């Protein structure tokens, strides 16, 4: 989920809203890391995310991968956030940094886009959906693109799981079986 910015493009973006907000979110993430608790089975097991980042990403994943029916597996059953944590280990450094920074933006800044003064993880689910919808159509391209990248990462975590394939009638890999036309 790259939010790669060169010196020049940072300058360009500074003219707009983007980096100011990103920086705010980043700073806020460093300051406000209290009040986030990891579930017992995650303690000491995460490789990249800290407790705050794990909590924020779990809240986002609950919205992004929300099911439309009872046959769809949950984000816990598919371990979406655990997948992203592992995937992030070998991400190029600047992408990993941008990903973590962006989580801070969503937690502390994005709620303002939907006129909420509370941090993302404390909002009710419907309001969280509003915040993400506002982010998805935000005028600032970096915020929009950042959310698209984050969504892609979460969908990767979700749809990689064979339990989701029957929803799509998708057969999965052909290795070890006859290829049917």
């Amino acid at each position, binding site marked *: *989920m*790259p*939010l*790669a*910015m*060169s*010196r*020049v*493009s940072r300058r360009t*973006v500074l003219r707009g809203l983007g980096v100011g907000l990103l920086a705010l979110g980043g700073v806020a993430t460093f300051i406000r890391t209290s009040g986030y608790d990891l579930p017992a089975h995650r303690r000491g097991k995460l490789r990249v995310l800290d407790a705050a980042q794990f909590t924020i990403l779990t809240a986002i994943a609950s*919205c*992004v*991968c*929300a*099911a*439309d*029916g009872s046959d*769809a597996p949950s984000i816990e059953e598919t371990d979406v956030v655990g*997948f992203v944590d592992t*995937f992030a280990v*070998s*991400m*190029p*450094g*600047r*992408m990993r940094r941008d990903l973590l920074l962006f989580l801070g933006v969503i937690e502390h800044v994005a709620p303002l886009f939907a006129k909420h003064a509370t941090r993302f993880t404390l909002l009710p689910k419907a309001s969280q*959906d509003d915040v*993400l919808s506002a982010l*998805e*159509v935000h005028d600032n*391209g*970096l915020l*929009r*693109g*950042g959310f*698209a*990248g984050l*969504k*892609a990462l979460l*969908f*990767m*975590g*979700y*749809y*990689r799981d064979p339990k*989701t*394939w029957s*929803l*799509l*009638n*998708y*057969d*999965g*890999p*052909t*290795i070890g079986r006859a*290829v*049917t*036309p």
Partner: protein
Amino acid sequence: MSIRSGADLKGQVRLLCDAVVVGTGAGGSIAARELARAGAKVIAVEEGALSTSADFNQREEQMLPLLFQDRGGRTTDDLAIRVLQGRGIGGSTVHNTNLCKRTPDAILELWHERYRVTGMRPSELAPAFERIERDLSVSEIPLAMRNRNNDILRIGTEALGWRGGQLKHNRVGCQGSGFCELGCVYNAKQNALKVVIPEAVLAGADVIADVRAVKILHDSSRVLGLYGEAIDREGRVVAEVTIDAPVVVLSASAVGSAALARASRIPDRYDLIGRRLRMHPGSVVAGRFKDEVCGDKGIPQSYECTEHLSFEEGSDKRVWITTAFAHPIGTASVLPGFGAKHMSMMRSYRHFSVLTAMLHDESMGEVYLAPDGRPALRYQMSRSDCLQLQKGLRACAELLFAAGAEEVVIPATPRVVVKSRRDLDSIDWSFGKPHSVPLTAVHPMGTMPLGDDPRSSVVNSRGEHHQVRGLFVADGSLFPTSIGGPPQISIYSFAQHLSPHIVERLRH
């Protein structure tokens, strides 16, 4: 195939050869093969790993990070365009979709007249094209292997009386699994990995995977060699590699080669290196059909619609339309929205036919170095290209309706759902622009163009830098303009055509 891995090197390594080739994709594989066949001592370094059909497992979440640059996450710096490029022995040919088209004659003539490219008119390049097509077993995709997604494009094209046709490919023994973009488990792709690199090795080339070129060594007038870093599977540097050589061939792709040239401070009097990046950016349109389409099965792309494509300079027909189908993760990331609504759309996965409108782009981007030294891309789509994109999206929608789609979904944000062909007239298509529709580019090119005028080209028509003797380019960077279609045959063939000049340089 005997290929070394840089991961096995340690400390400071010093090597000596006649020519170093950087990158082992379409261009690099041919350069390495031809130089080795001419008797030169060649070392080809590749920053990615060697992965073969035994390593491919048809799983998106594992193959994307294994086979693609930046673990599949490369984008333009404004995050508007996803840029897919290969990383590993065989480069982008490992996961490409095997379409084979020659450079259009009109483009070659344009380069000759406008960009002072000599020796590369259609008749002059014909022997190289023929040679490459023979080597890679290029043939027309059998009609029996056209899947329903591609047949829908054919039906739509014919129903509208538009121009189109069956495409050619470089596959032998294809099982129609549909997983081409994740590497072929059945080893059916006749690509750099399977065909050309083994031939290069057989001819004596020393191919080393997991070595990233960091700097071209030169004294501003001639090449002295290459400095690189050997890396392990976790990306840690395990050795420093210095290769002394009078010739360096840049084949690290239009992104990698320009970035390396910039990092090496190659003389660039007219500030051309990395500029003029074209990419064929494209977006998709999905049609929902009553019956299953199963676009994920069979050869992904076998038919094209060229009604809106002309190669005349300044033409307002600059859209190439073909099919585009992805596996679940790829599809989910392109569909707009999220949550329950998104999942409902995903349930139509098997009922979607997906077309892509790719631009024969005029916009010019740039490859530059990010603060961490890695390549970064800047690309602003011009107004004229945005209009072409809008035209292309509309044309895809028309084709899908003409083929019987019940509704058409344009994955814009917010999404656009169209119920009938008539409704297309009432749509304001201005949403067709970066950040509003998902854009992907798989054909970066043009960052170190060739030509005989140093004011408009980085290398001469023999592929050699205008000022630095012994520095050659043999990859997609060479194109002076977009070519408006799949570039691999052009790149393989240009490398084939230019190789004798490199051999010649070694002799003098």
